């Protein structure tokens, strides 16, 4: 089991800040989702963690920087590129080469090829591989040393729905074995199903870090939705009690920062009839868009921005 501790990570390109003073932990036994808009600095952060890029700060794996790990693939498995292999080197040879650098027996090469469903193409050249097969070969390389830590940059890219589900179950299984898994993805619905913790960054800075439930719970999109034939009276009563009320386009009221029991009791006390009283729970996507508003590289034209 390995704890990843990233502290004060920073990187600038020609004076432009890509990552700034970024600190977070990745705990064993959990899948930690690494989220951020395009250009937020996720890939740069992962490269900094592995010592591939020069920058500020340090990352330790159970107290040791990556550069000090002997036979690093036995400790940290990484997938940083969509197709991180030579197109004409056979899949098995690619893994044999990496195994040789870490004194991993060839039997393990065949084992991971089987585990990742690549046994039939082990002796094929990956230039003919689909993006999904390429991702699986990259993942096979990451798992080659049976590491206790995985750092995966967009591993679901190019996978079909079955492949994405397979990936989710695999990563959850690996985390269930006590490994630390840090995975970036732009598939928020997948991340909601897969991750236990989140590290969210925007413009290279930390926006949030912690359990996924807390991140979603903190969204202003969480509200009590109430429908009544007398919205004016209920709004007055709620505002008098110090609650923030907004009127939705369909005429229902949204009350933030309160639970259904409080709204129901208040309506009863004021003799107001209710037709609907429900909790609206924000999705991860809503929470993510809300927290990263203004941190994306581009703003969609014609799209509605979630108010921060």
């Amino acid at each position, binding site marked *: 089991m390995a704890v990843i501790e990233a502290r004060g990570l920073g990187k600038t390109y020609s004076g432009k800040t890509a990552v700034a003073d970024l600190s977070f932990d990745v705990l064993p036994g959990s899948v930690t989702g690494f989220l951020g808009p395009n250009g937020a600095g996720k890939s740069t952060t992962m490269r900094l963690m592995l010592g591939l890029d020069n920058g500020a700060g340090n990352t330790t794996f159970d107290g040791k920087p990556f550069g000090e790990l002997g036979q690093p693939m036995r400790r940290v498995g990484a997938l940083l590129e969509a197709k*991180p292999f030579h197109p004409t080197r056979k899949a098995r040879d690619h893994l044999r080469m*990496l195994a040789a650098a870490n004194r991993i027996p060839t039997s393990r090469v065949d084992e991971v090829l089987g585990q990742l469903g690549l046994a039939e193409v082990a002796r094929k050249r990956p230039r003919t591989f689909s993006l999904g097969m390429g991702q699986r070969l990259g993942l096979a390389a990451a798992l080659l040393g049976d590491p206790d830590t995985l750092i995966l940059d967009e591993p679901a890219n190019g996978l079909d729905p079955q492949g994405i589900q397979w990936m989710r179950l695999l990563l959850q299984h690996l985390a269930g074995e006590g490994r630390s898994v840090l995975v970036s993805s732009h598939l928020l619905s997948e991340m909601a199903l897969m991750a236990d913790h989140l590290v969210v960054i925007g413009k290279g800075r930390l926006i949030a870090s912690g359990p996924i439930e807390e991140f979603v719970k903190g969204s202003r999109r969480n509200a009590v939705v109430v429908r009544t034939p007398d919205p004016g009276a209920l709004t007055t009563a709620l505002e008098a009690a110090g609650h923030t009320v907004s009127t939705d386009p369909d005429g229902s009221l949204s009350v933030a920062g309160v639970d259904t029991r409080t709204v129901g009791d208040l309506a009863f006390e004021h003799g107001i009839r209710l037709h609907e009283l429900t909790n609206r729970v924000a999705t991860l996507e809503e929470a993510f868009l809300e927290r990263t508003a203004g941190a994306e590289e581009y703003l969609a034209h014609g799209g509605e921005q979630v108010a921060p």
Partner: protein
Amino acid sequence: MRDALAYELVRIRTIRSTWWLTVGAVVVGVGISTLFSWGISADFADNGVNGPEPVGALVVTQVAATGQVPSIVCFILALVGVLAWGHEYRHGMIRSSLTALTSRPALWLAKFLVVGAWVAVVAFTTFLLAGLVGTLFLSDYLTVLDGQTWSVIGRQVLYGVLLTWLAMAFTLLTRSQAFALVMVFLWPLLVESLVKLLFLLVPQLRDDQEVLRFLPFTAGTKMVDVLSEPTSTFGDPLSPLGGTVVFGLTAVVLMVASFVSFRTRDA
């Protein structure tokens, strides 16, 4: 270091280009020598060893054993070096390499050692086979694989290794396989020729033409030159040792620059 060497040994053997270039170098090297040996043998048969335009034994032995000066074999094998670093950057392999091996100096050194050793072995084998073919054709007239030929073969092998290392360093510095491939041939064939032309055309430079012997590839050809009669190591022309020092220093300077760059730049 042991792990880096193991990695490089598997890497160089599991890529098709290594084998294509290796077979190409052997075929071209032995092929050219076969043609030379056959032609000279026919000439000797018609006109005798001391015919109307006698070919010096030294030239015979050299072309028979090493093809030409400097051998095209070395240039073909230098491409193995270009691809050794070129593939790392062209196919994004460098990040895989550096997450499998955390020591950049070890990876850098392993690449230069393994590729250098590969080139040395293939070049020596090629020249040896060429010499044996030469012996087959010319044994009735002279001894091809004599002491002097062995000396030329040794210098050709050294030239091949230095050229390969220079090409590798250049590739690592530019991180462009295509640019490095072009430059390996353009530098000796075009760049140095243009510099020489400049010294010929510009009156102010005309008196300083003797410095041209220090141009890296011009000096490199002197490593394997058996026709010139140098008077001192760094005189004009350079001796084989002088050529080795100049060409070798060029390679070393580029290698040091590539090492510093590799250690400090982002992967």
